[in-house]
């Protein structure tokens, strides 16, 4: 189901993400920037993909397009069966709320809220019952080992703890796809490893599809099953790091 640069496969129904000839151009003054320029690939459900490239290669732009934070100039970006280019603004918000979860390099927790409140916030937008929210948020924080810290504000925590909290927040509405933008970029190697282990755990036990942007090839090789290389908005390489993500290898595979 994974594609290789030499032999692109046809999109399959089991793909979590299907990208077809995707372009995202924008103007910066006189210059036309081709951040994403004719990209096509598919990601199978339950796969763990790393997007690699130098800064400015377009990997973050690509991630934003899959997240529904940005709209393509042309082409298709289908996530869990829906073409984001065709969705209205409210539908895109629902996509971000329920289909994908996001983790950022700079954590992006809201500084005025405690960890508990930060994790609870997506449930407010999803209009989850007030009675259930507390338990769910507590559970999510327990999963990333932050039970003791849940009433602290982000500024009182280490980077690793903040990123763990943001992982808990990304998971709270049970999305099928986790989009991670340099999740270890601001962390030392010990904390980075911890975060990557959590992400791998989500991939394996929850069957979440992971798409991670990084510029560290070593990290990608260690955790991802597939690496897509980008340069100047185009795919320059697509390789597997290990055995193909056969459904038999993990428990909790979706479907």
């Amino acid at each position, binding site marked *: 189901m994974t594609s290789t640069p030499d032999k692109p496969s046809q999109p399959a129904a089991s793909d979590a993400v299907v990208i077809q000839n995707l372009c995202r151009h924008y103007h910066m003054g006189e210059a036309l920037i081709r951040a994403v320029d004719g990209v096509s690939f598919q990601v199978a459900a339950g796969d763990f993909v790393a997007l690699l490239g130098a800064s400015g290669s377009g990997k973050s732009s690509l991630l*934003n397009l899959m*997240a529904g*934070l*940005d709209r393509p100039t042309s082409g298709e970006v289908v996530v869990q069966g829906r073409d984001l280019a065709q969705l209205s*603004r*409210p539908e895109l*918000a*629902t996509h*971000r*709320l*329920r289909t994908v979860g*996001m983790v*950022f390099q700079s954590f*992006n*927790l*809201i500084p*005025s*809220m405690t960890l508990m409140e930060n994790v609870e*916030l*997506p449930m*407010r*937008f*999803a*209009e989850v019952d*007030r009675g259930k929210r507390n338990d769910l948020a507590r559970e999510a924080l327990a999963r990333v080992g932050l039970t003791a810290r849940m009433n602290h504000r982000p500024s009182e925590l280490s980077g690793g703890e903040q990123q763990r909290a943001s992982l808990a*927040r*990304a998971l709270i*509405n049970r999305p099928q796809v986790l989009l991670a933008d340099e999740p270890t970029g601001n962390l030392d190697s010990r904390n980075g490893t911890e975060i990557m282990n959590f992400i791998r755990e989500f991939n394996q036990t929850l069957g979440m599809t992971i798409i991670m942007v990084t510029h560290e090839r070593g990290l990608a090789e260690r955790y991802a099953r597939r690496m897509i290389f980008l340069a100047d908005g185009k795919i320059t390489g697509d390789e597997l790091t290990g055995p193909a993500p056969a459904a038999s290898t993990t428990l909790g595979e979706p479907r």
Partner: protein
Amino acid sequence: MKLYDLSELALRNLRESVLRNSLTTIGISVGVASLVAMVSLGIGLQQLASRRLQSSGLFDTVMVSSRRDLRGFGREDERNGPAPAESPALDEPARQAIEHLPNVAEAYPDIRFITELRYQDKPHLTTVAGLPASSKNMDAFDGMQGSFFSSDTAPEAILQKAFAEELLGRTHEADDNVNVADVAKPLLGQELVMRYAQRESSPPTGEAAAGPARASGGQASSGQAPSEPASSQQAAAYSVVSRQQTLKIVGVSDLDPESMRGPARARVFIPLKLAQNLHVMQPSDLRDTALAPGSQPAYTNVSVRVQSPRYVQNVEDAVKKMGFNAFSLIDASRNVRQFFVVLDIFLGIFGSLALAVASIGIVNTLVMAVLERRREIGIMKAIGAGDADVRKLFFAEAGVMGIAGGCVGVLLGWTIGQVINFGANIWIRKQHLPPEQIWSTPWWLVVLSILFSALVSLLSGLYPAARAARLDPVQALRYE
């Protein structure tokens, strides 16, 4: 997002920059306070004026006269309604019928006559009027010396101060220079002898023809017209008898006989029942005899006191339907009310100016908040907040500031009114006048002000909220 979550998030966001938001809210409070204070002043003045007008007895009274009396109250009265000759007589049954109309408190005949009063054997000619017991509470008697009549039939009199001066043999001075207490002291408790012509009914049949001959007393005369044989068949006869009545002076009033205040154009007042029982010959008696003679004496005018000025128009219409002329000063009070509506609008506009300035403060605060919280808005959008959620959140913040500012403002405005009222009353008391409530804040003004404040704040939040909602999350997240 649910309303509870919205308000909770809005409140916590407002708490985050508590100084700035408090200052903005105080701005709204001042705006609302000025609005409340201004409109309260307008309403208070209006109530003060209408209280004064009501106690003057002018605006709850309808004057009724018979159409037989050719002097109508206006052209319209002369053109509409039955012809004078066919209209009913304004006699005792008519008075009772009027008194039984809905919302009528009382209907009393207007009895006044010119007669001679002797004080210490010196004659004085003046107008005497009957006064109903209900007029005791009129503010015309505010400055009265002595007391009101002990009963409705007591042989007692209240003098107007100018007449009191005349009795004392003083020359009349300008009204304001006369001290009522001064002239009252030697007169209270003294006796007056009133001489008057009594109308005495005779049996209607047989002796009718003898009417003219039955003159008793020196001043007697007959009203019977011998040239009308047809009507003289049913006509009642009466004689005019000279009588006298001793009256005790119980009060001297301050009111001015020329003023428009109530039935004050006479100079001596006696209890109404007493006046009626005297059966003093009225000028209208002669005319009635000519038109349609009856056994009942007719009244020149009947004053109808209505329970509330609100009903005056209804009563006036009902009386007109009965075939009488009716007149009230409600038209004049309509103009007064119109004036106060205009005054209220102007005060409201001036009061709202401060609120308009405050609303710019809200716009400013929220635009600043949008800029400051760009990244936060980006985060919220990234984790699934829709444009509508973000817009509602800023709306809620504006609304909370508006309602809080409205509540504080109403309290502030009310306090300002009370303080100025208190100060004004200190001054009023120094002028030896009764204290007045100049400021009045009715509950509907409180509710409307808070709603208005919330509305203005929400309108001010419109632009900042739209700006926040439109924010591009990719750029917002890049913003540090």
